[in-house]
């Protein structure tokens, strides 16, 4: 029996005169997981947007049953049962968790929403995906990882037939990912199909039945997972092989750059106190990469916020280059030679409507003026430099940030902060949504920068990354530092023990 749900034929799509998808065809069968692999900007999200009805292809057809469509509308896709978790999170921050889960699919009778039914279902879903929040919690109060879980809850809510997951795991940590994969596997058994995008190939190999490799908008291969391996996929994607990703070697040893002594956040009545960092002490030296690991919501981002003066500090001291400092806002922090690559590129990283040049030059523009007049030539050149160095896939510095693919946006955020030449660089999930090739480049960059004496704090939910790239590891659990490990001591088990609070290291 034919198990095909939908079939794409010769789908093509251009933005302006840039062709992003070249005549791609494939079918989606029931109960299978398809992984889309490809570099940043290869066209993965675009293809998924076409399937889910939010973009119209220029050419080609989509067949469903015995009907052919030139494109789906969102409503049609929904009727068929196509759900999508978008790479750029699609949430309504002012509405609560429950309203977000059910948006567009409220259970209602004659226009009146049926709150009881939805409450029951939303509690189930929250439990299922492991989102530790009440249905009435406003989404604005939830950090990015929680939002990702929320979107997942939304996608699995109704009886979907095809669920498209565009980097659903990029801000999740192991525990959530495990939980999530269990759900996927269960749904798959019930005949639900998935299109899965992730730059973490081990996830791809764990889940996918088939791997479709895209390169520059073309389908270069459709592989059965059993018959291939990571190396081949990477070669097909990038055109070259990466053998050992994490080649961290500390070359420079210097003084302590940044030191926190017993920093605690302010206990604010209504917030969930557990997540506000308490009694955190740490040191980072020149040339060192200090990793901070922890589960989602452990309070790592909040810690950076506190360091940067964007969240109140209740007690404790901060020393930069040995001197005690008062940081009232990120402006002070920047002046002290710090830079912070934020995790949420949309909210805190980019001015989406602005050009790449403007985004890249924002923190440094004040330094490049002649008699008050901005030296735009210089800024353009500087931007070109970073665009090349980070291999950003773009039509040029004048492209708007919002028109870049997710991974390329992330590179722009990184470039923006590198351009300030910081002495202390804090990277909060720096490789979120970045492809393997670019990741390798960023790791190389981390090594180069530390070799020149920069101190780096690397926060990442991806254990291999944070373990592979840091010289020392700090592990947080519910706002507290539960463990500190030296490179020689790392094992995944040990880190997870601290990260889940099963073990607490006492100095």
């Amino acid at each position, binding site marked *: 029996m034919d198990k095909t749900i939908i079939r794409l034929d010769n789908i093509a799509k251009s933005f302006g005169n840039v062709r992003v998808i070249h005549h791609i065809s494939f079918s989606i069968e029931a109960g299978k997981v398809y992984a889309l692999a490809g570099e940043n900007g290869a066209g993965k999200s675009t293809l998924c947007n076409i399937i889910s009805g939010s973009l119209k292809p220029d050419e080609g057809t989509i067949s469903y049953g015995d009907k052919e469509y030139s494109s789906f509308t969102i409503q049609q896709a929904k009727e068929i049962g196509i759900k999508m978790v978008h790479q750029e999170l699609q*949430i309504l921050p002012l509405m609560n968790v429950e309203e977000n889960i059910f948006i567009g699919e409220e259970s209602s009778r004659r226009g009146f929403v049926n709150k009881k039914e939805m409450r029951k279902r939303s509690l189930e879903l929250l439990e299922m995906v492991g989102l530790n929040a009440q249905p009435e919690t406003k989404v604005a109060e939830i950090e990015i990882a929680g939002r990702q879980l929320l979107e997942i809850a939304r996608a699995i809510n109704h009886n979907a037939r095809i669920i498209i997951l565009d980097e659903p795991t990029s801000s999740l940590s192991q525990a959530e990912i495990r939980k999530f994969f269990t759900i996927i596997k269960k749904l798959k058994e019930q005949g639900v199909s998935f299109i899965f995008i992730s730059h973490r190939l081990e996830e791809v190999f764990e889940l996918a039945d088939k791997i479709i490799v895209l390169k520059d908008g073309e389908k270069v291969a459709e592989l059965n997972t059993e018959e291939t391996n990571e190396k081949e996929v990477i070669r097909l994607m990038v055109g070259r092989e990466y053998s050992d990703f994490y080649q961290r070697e500390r070359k420079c040893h210097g003084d302590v750059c940044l030191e926190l002594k017993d920093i605690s956040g302010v206990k604010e009545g209504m917030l969930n106190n557990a997540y506000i960092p308490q009694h955190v002490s740490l040191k980072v030296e020149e040339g060192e990469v200090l990793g901070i690991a922890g589960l989602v919501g452990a309070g790592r981002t909040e810690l950076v916020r506190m360091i940067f003066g964007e969240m109140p500090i209740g007690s404790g001291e901060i020393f930069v280059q040995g001197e005690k400092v008062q940081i009232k806002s990120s402006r002070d922090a920047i002046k002290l030679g710090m830079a912070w690559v934020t995790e949420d590129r949309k909210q805190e990283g980019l001015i989406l409507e602005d050009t790449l040049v403007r985004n890249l030059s924002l923190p440094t523009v004040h330094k490049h003026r002649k008699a008050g007049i901005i030296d735009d030539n210089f800024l353009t050149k500087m931007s070109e430099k970073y665009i090349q160095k980070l291999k950003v896939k773009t039509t040029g510095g004048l492209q708007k940030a919002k028109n870049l693919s997710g991974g390329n946006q992330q590179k722009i955020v990184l470039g923006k902060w590198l351009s300030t030449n910081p002495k202390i660089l804090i990277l909060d999930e720096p490789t979120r949504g970045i492809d393997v090739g670019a990741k390798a480049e960023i790791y190389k960059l981390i090594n180069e920068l530390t070799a020149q004496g920069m101190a780096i704090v690397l926060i990442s939910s991806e254990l291999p990354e944070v373990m592979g790239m840091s010289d020392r590891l700090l592990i947080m659990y519910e706002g507290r530092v539960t463990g500190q490990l030296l490179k020689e001591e790392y094992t995944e088990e040990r880190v997870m023990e601290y990260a889940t609070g099963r073990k607490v290291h006492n100095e």
Partner: protein
Amino acid sequence: MNDKKLMIKSKGILNQIGLLGVIAVLCIIFTCLNSTFIAAANLMNIVRQSAVMIIVAMGVTFVMISGELDLSIGGVACLTGMVVSKLLTTGVSIPVAILIGLLLGALLGLFNGILTTKFNLPSMIVTLATMNLANGSASLITGGTAIYNLPQEFEFLGRGFIFGIPAQVVFMVILVIICGIVLSKTLIGRYALAIGGNADVAKLAGISVIKYKLLYFVFCSLCASFAGMILTSRLATGQPNLASNMMMDTLTAVVLGGTAMSGGEGSIAGSVMGALLLTIISNGLTINGVNSFWQMIISALILIATIIARRKKD
């Protein structure tokens, strides 16, 4: 960010408590200064005076929650008033004239809505244009002069009583109750909040943003044209410069009530209280013999005090 989070959390209720607090304090002050303020007749007077503003505020609340702006309300009210007056003086029966008035409102709302959504134009300019269009047309009907000799029975809308309560107050209360239910209990309300929160997200969730926005615009204009008829009925003449302050006053009331200019947030109770607050200020000051210039200043100060007080409460 963090403070913001705190703020948002408890907004729903506290917002309104903040406003209520200000209203209470004002009432006490005004009563101390002049006890007629608290007299039943004056309280009814206040409610009656605010009724029209509240009616219009209902429509504006929906439009604003959905992330758009309707500046045309005053114009719509004015044009409806004039058209209905003209119809009435040419012998059209009252119910028919009222129906035509509402139809006109709906059409103007549709015009706003279509230009804003289908043509994807900024609603601020579209509705500004509609305002001028409507005001200009209102004056053209007579060449700029007022219309007199409306039938006596038409005065019911603005001067009549239903069970001893001014008719306009009754209409207002019914409308407020309906709107309260619609906003909090139905898809129409929920989608307004969603669309205003982020129209792209709403669209991706399969909500037909255009259809709903059209609905909000039409409803808003309907409210405005109904208000225009009440005002006309109360004045017992068709005035070509009717409702010239309606837009500013109503927008102020709605924003004061906690509806975000940028959409995604707002409440019916808030808008009602915003309108009441504005009316109480002007009534209390007039009764206490404060002249209109001081009134402007004092009400501006109270406005600022209110938003600060509300903010502190959060």
